[in-house]
């Protein structure tokens, strides 16, 4: 029992808040953070986005980092969230612990590279940004400003990166390679991502409508979400009270298509089944599902079919991407934390912008916040391009 994986700290920043308390307030009020882009310099203003409401300069100030520093927005978001998580877990000096950082990201420092790419090739004006282009450099940047972690790596499985970081972190704790691990992901908006998703014609021109019959795509967001994990025994030794527990997880591959989900939701189903099996829970013991729910025709149907196969009836389910936008690599971290905040405050968060049930499915998402609704166990789905599907089960601290 004492080998249970406890969550002892949370850190979050997204379109709906720069920290836990702001985020919780938005979540309780169903206040969406989606709107017209203010900070991303793209011609595609027809697409609303879920931006963190701070410029790079403001983020640097908040991080107490010199304005002249060569640092990407993804890294800045990561620094804020990791710091918040460490603080809650009462880890003041990172180097005093056997502690690792596993971070998920996909386009790394791309939002800078896309500004300076021609300079990289043609002149020497912005060479200092070359070194912060890749994913690993983002994580190293976070480490530089958060503490001397003794283990550090980066996972890049597109939109399930943060969830896979959690899985690897939990495995490392169980095997005794680390005492504490900070897991999650960070990703800022970039023209690269916005244009990329646009070529697939899966961006919605109105705020996304997950699980609605007339859904028409993703709203991109940005953010970071990190969790501090340690064994229950280790938390007790440090005299830190667990917020909740990781009771199961599963990673499976849809093996169907590089960008599309299979019609039968096979990968999604397998990931959920693996997570349930590890947790030892029955499907009916899951009180809430925080869906991947991107708002594309393809994902929501495929995920819905998989959920229906496993759960009869389907427990209350919502996609909080309708509030934050799709924070891509950070989504697993951000959305697990949103769900934990809901769990700790005994409510089920709403799936915004929903009107009509998807014809092929037998369930509707949560239409308005369900207050005074205790959650003992919830399941979080996080799926990525390439069929990288992962599911996590979190259980309350009782």
């Amino acid at each position: 029992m004492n080998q249970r994986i406890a969550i002892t700290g949370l850190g979050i920043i997204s379109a709906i808040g720069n920290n836990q308390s702001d985020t919780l307030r938005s979540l309780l009020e169903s206040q969406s953070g989606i709107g017209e882009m203010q900070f991303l310099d793209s011609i595609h203003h027809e697409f609303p986005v879920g931006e963190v409401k701070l410029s790079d300069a403001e983020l640097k100030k908040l991080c107490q980092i010199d304005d002249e520093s060569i640092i990407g927005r993804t890294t800045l978001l990561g620094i804020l969230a990791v710091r918040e998580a460490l603080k809650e877990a009462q880890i003041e000096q990172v180097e005093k612990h056997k502690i690792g950082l596993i971070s998920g990201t996909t386009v790394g420092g791309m939002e800078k590279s896309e500004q300076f790419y021609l300079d990289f090739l043609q002149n020497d004006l912005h060479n200092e940004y070359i070194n912060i282009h890749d994913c690993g450099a983002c994580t190293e940047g976070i480490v530089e400003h958060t503490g001397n972690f003794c283990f550090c790596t980066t996972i890049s499985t597109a939109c399930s990166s943060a969830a896979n970081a959690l899985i690897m972190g939990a495995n490392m704790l169980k095997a005794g390679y680390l005492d504490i691990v900070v897991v999650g992901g960070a990703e800022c908006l970039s023209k690269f991502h916005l244009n990329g998703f646009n070529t697939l014609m899966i961006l919605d021109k109105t705020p996304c409508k997950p699980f609605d019959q007339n859904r028409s795509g993703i709203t991109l967001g940005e953010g970071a979400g990190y969790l501090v994990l340690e064994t229950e025994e280790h938390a007790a030794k440090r005299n830190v009270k667990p917020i909740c527990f990781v009771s199961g997880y599963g990673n499976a591959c849809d093996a169907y298509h590089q960008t599309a989900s299979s019609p039968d939701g096979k990968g999604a189903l397998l990931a959920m089944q693996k997570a349930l099996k590890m947790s030892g829970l029955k499907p009916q013991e899951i009180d809430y599902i925080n869906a991947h729910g991107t708002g594309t025709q393809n994902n929501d149907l495929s995920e819905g079919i998989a959920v229906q196969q496993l759960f009869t009836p389907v427990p209350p389910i919502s996609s909080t991407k309708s509030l934050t936008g799709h924070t891509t690599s950070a989504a697993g971290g951000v959305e697990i934390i949103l769900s934990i905040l809901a769990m700790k405050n005994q409510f089920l968060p709403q799936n915004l912008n929903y009107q009509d049930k998807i014809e092929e499915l037998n369930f509707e998402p949560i239409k308005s916040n369900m207050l005074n609704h205790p959650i003992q166990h919830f399941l979080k789905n996080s799926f990525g391009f390439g069929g990288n599907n992962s599911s996590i089960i979190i259980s309350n601290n009782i």
Partner: protein
Amino acid sequence: MKQHNVYINGVGSISIQEEGALALPDWGEENYLRCIDPPFAQYISPALLRRMSKVVKRGIVSALLALKDGGIEMPDAIISGTGLGCIEDTEKFLSAMIEQNEQFLQPTHFIQSTHNTVSSQIAIMLKCYNYNNTFSHLGISLESALFDGFLQIKMGMLSNALINGCDEMTPDYHLMLKKVGFWKDTPFQMEDMYQAITSGTVAGEGCNSLLLSNEKNEHTYAEIKDIQLIHHRNNNNIEELLEDFLDKNGLTLSEIDAVMSGINGEMKNDAVYDKLYTEGENNPTQLIYRHLSGDFFTSSGFGLIQSAKVLKNQNIEPLLFRKENKKNKIRHILFHNHYKNSTHALILLSVCSN
């Protein structure tokens, strides 16, 4: 918890080397070589091939070779490491986006730009629904993937895992890295590998795959006893950490027969290894590989495969020697790779006598 042993049972490689015995390549003026590609059509159907970039094709072929070598058709896991991901497609999309002012962009380049493309394309080809993951962390991307697979086999969560390290070095990326001092600006000489007096290294690319398994059988090359990835920004105690790692595995440095290190002719890089492995007494034999593979974020895959072959065949190809200090049977190889002395990967490989 019952701990399982982890073996390397299959290897596959697409590199700058021709098939057959290792040869020292001519590094030319630029110190930059690209892969010698296999006939992809022999491995991948034309319908799939049509859309794949080079690194994806190479990653698939090296993976298929490792599976075949290890006698497994469907792995329990596909885990890849890539420092830069699929940069050919990333560059195509990025430059079109800039040149065409965010209009008329082709979806294919975006789709294939994602770092996890290799892992997922292997899964799609094999119809493999099992664990699938991709790491991208600079010079320890492959080691991170290897560690993920190792850990899960050890814990009994997987019985085998296909590990891939894939990177391509496009001319544009080569230029970018040149600007930040990655490459040597004087012609490479073999002496650089013995005693580096200049900065920079030689640029290569490649895809290397290893099939890990909990089962020792006729395919087995070596046992992976342990892996430790160490991250330390102020790295002055690596000696101590190395000692701890060996101690944890019941060994001392004097019992290590050979060290396969990431020596690459870059003086700051090589000094770290020299301090550890040349200054003591009873030094292990020093083995090197980057003059044969070129340097790239996952070049350690090439070195790991060479190490596995040494342990299996009990024979060291002459080109791998930096200094031969011991002539006995090779029981233990310490694989040591560091990236800018801030991250170290220690991998302990041991012989398997059947």
